[in-house]
């Protein structure tokens, strides 16, 4: 966090944008849970810029920073047969794990 000269990948999303969690391969380490992959949600907050876990786990401190986002999902979209319409779940991702959902 102290090395301000590190590059930052331009943030692609804003609060309210619809996004889908990508299902990238797990290369040794990730913090993107399996249960959210391929599911669409809405950006609830832009949090901070930092290394991604996949680089940080290997002390790749010189790797570019990415914007992190809190994404809100409908529980009904995460789990088949979830019985309560209004319930939600939020969790956090760096930019590369998300892709835009059109429409």
């Amino acid at each position: 966090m102290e090395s301000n000269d590190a590059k930052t990948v331009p943030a692609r999303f804003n609060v309210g944008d619809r996004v889908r969690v990508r299902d990238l391969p797990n290369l040794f380490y990730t913090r993107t849970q399996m249960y959210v992959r391929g599911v669409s949600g809405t950006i609830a907050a832009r949090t901070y810029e930092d290394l991604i876990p996949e680089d940080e786990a290997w002390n790749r401190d010189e790797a570019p920073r990415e914007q992190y986002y809190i994404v809100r999902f409908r529980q009904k979209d995460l789990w088949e047969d979830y019985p309560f319409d209004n319930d939600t779940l939020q969790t956090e991702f760096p930019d590369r794990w998300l892709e835009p959902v059109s429409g």
Partner: protein
Amino acid sequence: MQHSHEHDHGDHQHPAAPMVDEITDFEVLEIAVRELAIEKGLFTAEEHRRFTEWAEQIGPAAGSRLVAKAWTDPAFKARLLDDAVAACREIGVDWTEPTGSGTPSDYMNLRVLEDTPTLHHVVVCTLCSCYPRPLLGHSPYWYRSPNYRRRIVRWPRAVLTEFGLNLPSEVEVRVEDSNQKCRFMVLPVRPAGTENWTEEELAEIVTRDCMIGVALPGPSRKSDDIRPVHKASRPVPGDHQRAEAGK
């Protein structure tokens, strides 16, 4: 393995083994690093013991004060929701040095989740046990258990019911999976019946579980309440009876 006592008495084929699990890799690592640090002179065994004793006493008191202040001071609540790490400094919690030992918190992105009459938050870390320790101390055992971590995201209402918390279906239950570098604490709704209470009195009803989101604070449950007495169904003669006779 089932053994019949009648047959195994005096049989030494199965020596007694301690009823403990194997030590984990992380425990081995902790011991190795600690012993190396002591040999290198970074700290003594006595200093390590003192720090451990202190660390294990950290409680959720700071979080309780934060909630009570937010309930009584709308301007503070606005600052808390805007920048929680900065607001923590106002109650004497510095996330850059929460332990007093010069070590910063692992990450310094605290977000306070405000409950409303129609929105209830509950916090989990499905990947490990991320927890706002500068405010709530060490996480409870169940918070780190795979049972809680797996099920609260999938069946949140059923798990909350197991904690004795039944929420009506009109209330949106929002699970916050703390999987990255944000840490979360719930700001519950101030319960009715606490209208004229002081900040100090309010802090007493904000327990740890209320700030994780598996319980709601209530005016009838204070930390210094007299505990309910559950009488034994087959009391020892003279036990409860004697205590009652003495009243």
